[in-house]
């Protein structure tokens, strides 16, 4: 069987640039839409990470006396990227299933809507991270100059999250248990990523859980830059880049396999 629309004569839905523009626009509208009518507006995006940071700070810094200097800054450095990763993955489980009517009447590729949702979360992440870093700078003192390298250091995390999000969104259409499973998985994974404790505190026999955990590899570079004031080692950065690349390949393979009949499974 063949199914072909002459690419030379395709409509405006063709072209990567056009699709990227559409995804970014839809993402931006989603951000605007999220706080329509609320009095605090985008400030609500800070509520969850601030509340989480404060309660963890209270419990781990004061009750359990975790031996990490500048523990508040440590939490901020890890919790915001983790929240971006976890929120994005939870959000995209509905990216396609909630747009059934659109996908069954439009020629816009489904992946555009997934990227739009990732873009919306990325915008909120950038705003929250910037706001909390400024707040942390006021409380704990200015971060080191290497913080300027954050956009590059965070790039693998963003790419990794986007790639895993595409895979999760497409798989969620075919396997309706996945969103529930993912919630359980992310709740467990939160404690297996060193955002409330440092890698040094993990006993040697269990350290492989952190060292070979792709989620930890994505979060650690930002903790090193923001809290440690140092750039990640070349090995760590290369590993996180490689992991993001692998995630992209896996997402591309899954997308190629699942996109064709997706419309029938919505």
């Amino acid at each position: 069987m063949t199914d072909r629309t002459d690419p030379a004569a395709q409509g405006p839905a063709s072209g990567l640039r056009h699709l990227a523009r559409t995804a970014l626009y839809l993402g931006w509208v989603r951000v605007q839409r999220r706080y329509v009518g609320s009095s605090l507006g985008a400030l609500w995006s800070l509520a969850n990470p601030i509340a989480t940071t404060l309660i963890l700070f209270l419990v781990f810094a004061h009750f359990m006396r975790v031996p990490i200097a500048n523990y508040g800054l440590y939490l901020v450095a890890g919790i915001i990227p983790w929240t971006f990763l976890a929120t994005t993955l939870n959000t995209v489980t509905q990216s396609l299933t909630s747009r059934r009517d659109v996908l069954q009447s439009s020629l816009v590729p489904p992946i555009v809507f997934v990227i739009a949702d990732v873009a919306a979360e990325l915008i909120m992440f950038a705003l929250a991270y910037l706001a909390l870093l400024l707040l942390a700078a006021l409380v704990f003192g200015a971060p080191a100059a290497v913080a300027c390298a954050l956009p590059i250091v965070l790039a693998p995390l963003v790419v990794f999250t986007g790639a895993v999000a595409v895979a999760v969104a497409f798989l969620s259409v075919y396997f309706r248990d996945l969103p529930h499973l993912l919630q359980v998985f992310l709740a467990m994974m939160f404690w297996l990523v060193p955002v409330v404790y440092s890698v040094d505190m993990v006993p040697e026999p269990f350290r492989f859980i952190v060292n070979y955990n792709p989620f930890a590899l994505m979060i650690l570079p930002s903790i090193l830059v923001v809290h440690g004031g140092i750039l990640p080692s070349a090995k760590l950065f290369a590993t996180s880049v490689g992991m993001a690349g692998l995630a992209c390949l896996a997402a591309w393979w899954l997308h190629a396999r699942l996109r064709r009949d997706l419309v029938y499974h919505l």
Partner: protein
Amino acid sequence: MNETGERGGEAAETIVARHQGSHYAVLRHADRFYGVALDDLPFDPERIRTGSCRRSVHQAASRAEVEALIDADPWAWSTDPLPPVFHRGARPAAARGDGREPVVDLRGAVVSVPVRPAAETVKRRLIHGIRGEARRCVALLRQIDLAVRPGERVGIVGRNGSGKTTLLKAVAGIYPLAEGSRHVVGSIAPVIAQGIGFDHELSAATNIKLALAHMGRLEAWSPALQEAILDFAELGHRAHLPVQLLSSGQQARLAFAVTLFQTPDILILDEIFATGDEAFLRRATAAMTARIRTTPIVFLVSHNLAPIEALCTRCLMLAEGRIAADGPTADVLDLYRRTYRGAA
């Protein structure tokens, strides 16, 4: 409204009669007679040339001829005074640059949809997986052979569940084929549903851009297009109101106007005709007629046979997912009426 249509002291025209209740005025200007919607007064004949009238304008050499044009079946309206932006991008195939004509060619096309059991348990899924059983499928289209060339406007009729919308989606490429081949040359605009992507908490203006994005036409957005769409929907003064504050009729107008302003090579319409008050209906019908007549290939599904009869050069009758008849519109509609007398 100024009854004499005076514009800044200049007597641009003279109203000689009102026609069709109060919707149209018959005007005389420079020995020509015009049938003009009252919304377009004060009337300036220059607006016909520039295409900035809000409604269809009929012109003829005599008052009787104009009145006859207004009375005529709306599908027969010949004037097309829509905003110039309406026609932007419309181009004959030869002018596209590649010299290729738009084409739709389906051969042996089968569309088959997997059935998801209402209560699919993990146990049942595991058993199916171990046994290697494929999920049960239902064929919605069977062995469709269809070749459509430029200039053909194809009407599709059939009872509910006969496969009309599925065929449109297969032509558009929304539904992949289980068997057979699909070859399409040209840009496609599937208008299967209206108002897709609308967010009722956002403004009418934002929703225009949002709807274009959901239709894969974000590149087409411009302030001029947005203004033309709002003007056509008569919502220019409510552009910044949230859509949820518009009446359902106004929402329908907006949705219709967004789908109208596009110029594809292949236009696919599924029961897309305007709803609203009589005046809007008249104008929308004229505009959609103009759009259909200027598009190289059109597919039109409608349970109302009048537009198919008036606009389509060819007609398909579907039954049980197969093409039961394919031929000149009058013949196929005649067969359809005889076959489903009382049901159509």
